[in-house]
């Protein structure tokens, strides 16, 4: 039987990785991800999890070690944040085109400078195009469920792609929540053992990671892109089966009070909880406001998103990332291309908020909705606005 416990989300994620029977866990400490791997190393030390915990000397080594272990056929997990994720960057593109299904939880945190341990999405947005499947969790339960789901999807032979579950640093990673920890038997039913089609094995030698001459490089990248697009079907299928086993249903885009809404807030991750409170308040005041939360970020669920928008006229998109000199934040840009020149499409405004741990309050969400409404009438010069900048 699954059990409901009050538990720190990081610890619960580690428990989920244990329930998934991860076999190799190369890891390097960085706040706010540390509690996850500390707990995993404890589980290995206590004999609760039969795995190799590899205390590597850097995140770059962690991801390199993950590549080796996954290629050798072991279920592989790691976790990182911010500077650590950036240090991995060179390697991140490699297991995805090589189709090595590593699973990683990223506890999202700001990037230096100035150095900040607090939450936003800059660390993952600079890794947007690494070709990993990516989801964003809103709460602890979801973080646990998406972690188990990630192994199932990544290792599915129809997919064979690495996968990242994003959780907000501190605001999600360090909070204590009531979480239903699934039962081992149920997880085993949902998640079969890892059986890769190809692996490093002297009985059947293959070469992995060869040189891509111009005659083959494009095809390798196109194959990767096609695999990503095709993956959506299996991501959804795994969520359907997840519901059958565990009773919790997940969708690529989650709608909250969107019926007859004129303005929709669009969020990713844990600030969506505050956004829901803001929507409730605005609804109480008679405003037709709703919320869309993107759970599946890569591959981007365009069809589902468009459907979820329905007849709404204005989107107030929250970006937790400020790319200096760009036209707008990455989520805003994604949605603009999704709706470009589509008749009847909504007006889209991008709001950069919650950088480096700055709180995004109910009032801030209300401010975004008001501004988006006003901008829909009179277009501002910039495509985005930073919310909550201190004047003094």
């Amino acid at each position, binding site marked *: 039987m699954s059990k409901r416990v009050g538990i720190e989300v990081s610890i619960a994620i580690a428990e989920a990785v244990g329930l998934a029977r991860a076999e190799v866990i190369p890891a390097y400490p960085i706040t706010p991800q540390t509690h996850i791997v500390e707990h995993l190393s404890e589980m290995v030390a206590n004999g609760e999890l039969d795995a190799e915990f590899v205390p590597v000397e850097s995140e770059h080594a962690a991801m390199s070690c993950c590549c*080796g272990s996954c*290629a050798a056929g072991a279920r592989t997990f790691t976790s990182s944040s911010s500077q650590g994720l950036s240090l991995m960057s060179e390697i991140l593109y490699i297991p995805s085109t090589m189709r090595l299904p590593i699973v990683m939880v990223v506890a999202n945190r700001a990037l230096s400078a100035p150095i900040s341990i607090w939450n936003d999405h800059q660390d993952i947005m600079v890794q947007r195009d690494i070709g990993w499947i990516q989801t964003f969790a809103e709460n602890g339960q979801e973080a646990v469920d998406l972690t188990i789901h990630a192994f199932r999807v990544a290792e599915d032979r129809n997919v064979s792609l690495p996968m990242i579950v994003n959780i907000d640093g501190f605001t999600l990673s360090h909070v204590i929540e009531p979480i239903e920890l699934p039962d081992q038997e149920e997880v085993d039913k949902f998640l079969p053992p890892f059986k890769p089609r190809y692996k490093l094995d002297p009985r059947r030698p293959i070469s992995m990671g060869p040189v891509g001459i111009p005659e083959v490089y494009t095809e390798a990248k196109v194959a990767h892109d096609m695999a990503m697009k095709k993956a959506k079907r299996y991501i959804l299928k795994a969520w359907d089966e997840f519901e059958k086993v565990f009773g919790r249903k997940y969708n690529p885009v989650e709608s909250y009070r969107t019926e007859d809404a004129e303005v929709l807030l669009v969020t990713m991750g844990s600030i969506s909880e505050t956004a829901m409170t803001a929507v409730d308040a605005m609804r109480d005041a008679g405003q037709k406001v709703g919320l869309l939360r993107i759970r599946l970020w890569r591959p981007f669920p365009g069809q589902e998103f468009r459907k979820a928008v329905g007849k709404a006229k204005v989107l107030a998109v929250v970006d937790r990332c400020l790319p200096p000199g760009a036209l707008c934040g990455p989520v805003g840009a994604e949605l603009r291309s999704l709706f470009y020149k589509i008749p009847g499409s909504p007006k889209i405004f991008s709001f950069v908020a919650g950088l480096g741990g700055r709180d995004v309050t109910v009032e801030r969400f209300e401010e975004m909705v008001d501004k988006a409404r006003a901008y829909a009438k009179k277009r501002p010069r910039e495509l985005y606005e930073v919310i909550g900048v201190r004047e003094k």
Partner: protein
Amino acid sequence: MIPEFEKFKGFKAKNLPKAEPLSSGHRACQGCGEVLALRMVMKALGKDVIVCNATGCMEIITSPYPHTAWKVPWIHIAFENAASVASGVESARRVLARKGKIPKKHVDIMAVGGDGATGDIGLQFISGAFERGHDFLYVCLDNEAYMNTGVQRSGCTPYGAMTTTSPPGKKSFGQVTWKKNVPAIAVAHNIPYVATASPAYFLDLMNKVKKAALVKGPAYVHIYSPCPTGWGSAGERSIEISRLAVETKVFPLYEVIEGRYIISRKITKPKPVTEYLKGQRRFRHLDEEHIEYIQRRVDAEYEKLLRLAEMS
């Protein structure tokens, strides 16, 4: 002593393995000493091995998709991280064997890279893997520069040598630093086995590689590898140059077994370094003064090595 060595009788000219895990037909330059060394390494290891290759000449020339020269499992991820990739392979096999998912039969795991991949950009990764004690061998194929990118200097480029980033000029005589002692860095990790080898002494090379594979825990073999293209030497002279490097004490052959230095080939009547330097375009510009300095320093380094061997 190391128990794994007891049963190993050693390769002799008579019992050389016929199998070639690294096949011919690859794209190395004519007379490439590095691929020759790699061929010997693979002959010594046989077919029960997984190779983790760093980016560099050997990776490029053996794997232009859809061709491969490798008859054993082989993986290439990036330039600096072969030791970490090997750590991952080793950890995976350890847990999978424990769980009964793969046969218990021992498989060697080798990380291999050039001098740049090993002594410069990959040093941290190698240090980490050695310190954690993974059961693998790391082979450095030292052609004394970044050859794959067009002969730039590395920390292993010898004093005075001309490369594309240590060019001699009005204010320069080529590489200004002495060759980095990477084997000594490996020794400092207290790993059970470290050795230097040369393709001119192929039985010695193969035996050392085999011992590095047999020993439990990390092992390091640093192999001198002439590069006619980068050195401006004649392709047919690669083995001769390799032998001269040993005979002039420029590249001494030794083992360090559990911290004890053992000289494999004592040079009692050394040839002058000039014998070694001539016929290599990379040294052609050097004047008397620099050559004298090289001679003095080579002698002094060799003395240091002798003292280490006496102390052990």
